[in-house]
């Protein structure tokens, strides 16, 4: 039970009883939502939830560890294509599809391990970390974009260049002798469950000893190293975990739409995780999750009318965040709310404040 105690701690907002009461209420609403909504909307919310996983991964890497990765969509795409290649070639169905998803995440995690090794052990940090991961993402998008010919295939799985790979099976879950195809309500509950487990798991992780070291690295890598921690090992682990969450998003997305295009990796897609997380408040998991979901919902609503205007708004929000609330809007609002509530009993200041203005590591 010591694990559960780590759900609350210095590295997460919302440690109060009131927060958890609200959390349970939100969860109940989320669980009941399909009962009061039509299947199309439910599938759509599942689609939005899939992307919050990418954002949580970025929050861990960037907000907690101080590694500014532009590579989320790269791992998203690699996992998407891997899911396609594996599941199409195995003609997967039933529980096999879930193994394909795991395989796809493993491929992307291996890629993250390789890239992360070169960058982190090469002591690439700060701005350069962002640039190299960004260039990697764009190069991958360009690579998949030119795989149009029939020679670009692995086994039965054609890459189809700019149009993207199609024809992979949806996820299927064996359930008491029967098989449930994960779409509509079933997919919604599946993704909601995953998100719940991952959110709580990450909370435990960042409040554990490991997470405290990550935050120490964000605040001052040199000092952390002088305290005897192998900074690079911690960074690499955080990078692989964060990238794997993007990969999980990518695999789920591909299975959801049975489709993965190179455009899901390149610009402007690559800009989105950064905007979600920056706007929401990168140094807190809850702020990231809530803010990302709200932004996605808004973005989708406007996209119906004009994708260009939606993207302009996203760019504008990013600019506003940087100029007005560098630590993020949702984070800033939640913080001021919690300060108001605590006015009568002033607690100690948090030891590690948001490092938005400090030197990046």
């Amino acid at each position, binding site marked *: 039970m010591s694990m559960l105690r780590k759900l609350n701690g210095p590295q997460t907002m919302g440690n109060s009883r009131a927060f958890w009461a609200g959390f349970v209420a939100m969860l109940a609403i989320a669980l009941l939502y399909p009962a009061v909504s039509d299947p199309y909307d439910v599938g759509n919310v599942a689609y939005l939830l899939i992307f919050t996983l990418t954002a949580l991964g970025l929050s861990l890497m960037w907000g907690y560890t101080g590694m*500014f990765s532009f590579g989320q969509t790269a791992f998203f795409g690699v996992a998407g294509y891997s899911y396609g290649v594996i599941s199409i070639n195995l003609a997967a169905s039933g529980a096999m599809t879930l193994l394909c998803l795991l395989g796809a995440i493993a491929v992307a995690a291996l890629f993250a391990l390789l*890239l992360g090794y*070169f*960058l982190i*052990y*090469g*002591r*690439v940090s*700060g*701005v*350069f970390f*962002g*640039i*190299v991961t*960004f*260039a*990697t993402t*764009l*190069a991958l998008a*360009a*690579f998949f974009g*030119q795989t149009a010919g029939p020679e670009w295939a692995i086994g039965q799985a054609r890459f189809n260049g700019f149009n993207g790979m199609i024809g992979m099976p949806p996820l299927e879950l064996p359930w008491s002798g029967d098989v449930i195809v994960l779409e509509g309500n079933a997919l919604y509950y599946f993704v909601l469950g995953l998100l719940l487990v991952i959110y709580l798991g990450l909370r435990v992780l960042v409040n554990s000893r490991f997470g405290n070291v990550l935050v120490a690295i964000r605040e001052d890598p040199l000092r952390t190293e002088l305290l005897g921690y192998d900074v690079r090992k911690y960074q690499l682990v955080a990078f692989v975990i964060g990238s794997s969450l993007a990969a999980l998003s990518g695999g789920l997305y591909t299975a959801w739409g049975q489709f993965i295009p190179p455009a899901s990796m390149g*610009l*402007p897609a690559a*800009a989105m995780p*950064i*905007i979600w997380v*920056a706007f929401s408040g990168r140094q807190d998991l809850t702020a990231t999750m809530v803010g990302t979901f709200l932004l996605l919902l808004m973005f989708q609503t406007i996209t119906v009318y*004009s994708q*260009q*205007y939606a*993207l*302009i708004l*996203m*760019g*504008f*929000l*990013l*600019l506003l*965040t*940087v*100029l007005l609330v*560098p630590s993020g809007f949702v984070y800033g609002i939640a913080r001021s709310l919690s300060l108001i509530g605590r006015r009568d009993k002033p607690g100690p200041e948090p030891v590690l404040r948001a490092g*938005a*203005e400090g030197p*990046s590591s």
Partner: protein
Amino acid sequence: MFAEAFSIAFQFADVFAFLILAAAGLAIIFGMMGIINMAHGEFITCGIYVTVIAVQHGVPLPLAQALGAVSAGLVGIALERTIIRHLYHRPLDSILATWGISLMVTQGMLIVLGSSWQGIGTPLGSFKVGDYTFSAYRLVLFGAAVGVLAGLYLIFMRTGYGVMARATMQNAAMAKALGVRTERMYAISFGLGAALAGLCGALYAPTMTLIPTMGITFIIESFVTVVVGGANVLLGTAPAGILLAIVRTALNAWYGQIAGQIGLLITVIIVIRILPEGVSGWLSRRER
């Protein structure tokens, strides 16, 4: 035999010119203020569109290209005065801000200018060496790249601005204490970087199909060159350009464009594994 050798040299020069011209503006801004300008591609696009519009209104090409560079520079100064100057001590936030701007500009241009335009065609025709035909304009581009490097050297080593700019780059507080108007140095340098990006766009305008998102064509190459070059523009950019051009020319010849691009990336990752401060960091450490 000579024709083959010339062909290889020509391709090398072409790639080298592309890398240097694409990276120069980004490198100046990064070297001077430690800011990675994510809107770099949009300054290039600005140079391209101004050039093409001017040519379509009857302005001679060289003049139109100068116009393209100057207007990108002016936009750069305006941007520096309004937004960038608030972010000097927050390099990461400056990336985010310029990225937000980049996104807004690209999408805004898609709305205003539509998806594609008529290009203006490559001038100067072609010439033959042996059995191979070469575009004469590509030689102009190579000349321009060398000219940009020489020009930067002269500006930073031989002018009053150059001395003050380098002083600001090395120690802004000390430079300010000695009477250098560092704010102005930053504004001019950002403008210079933007103008060089505009020049890159202006020079490549005749060779490209016009779409508002074309700035991205230059982005990978420019970033990669700056990362390999390191913080010191004068020392790093040219050797980085040569190294990357060799890799790219070889891979392009054997495996095609995309292999060239991925090869560049792998080279960068290996280079920063060995030389974390880039070529210029390595060179300046050797000097000491």
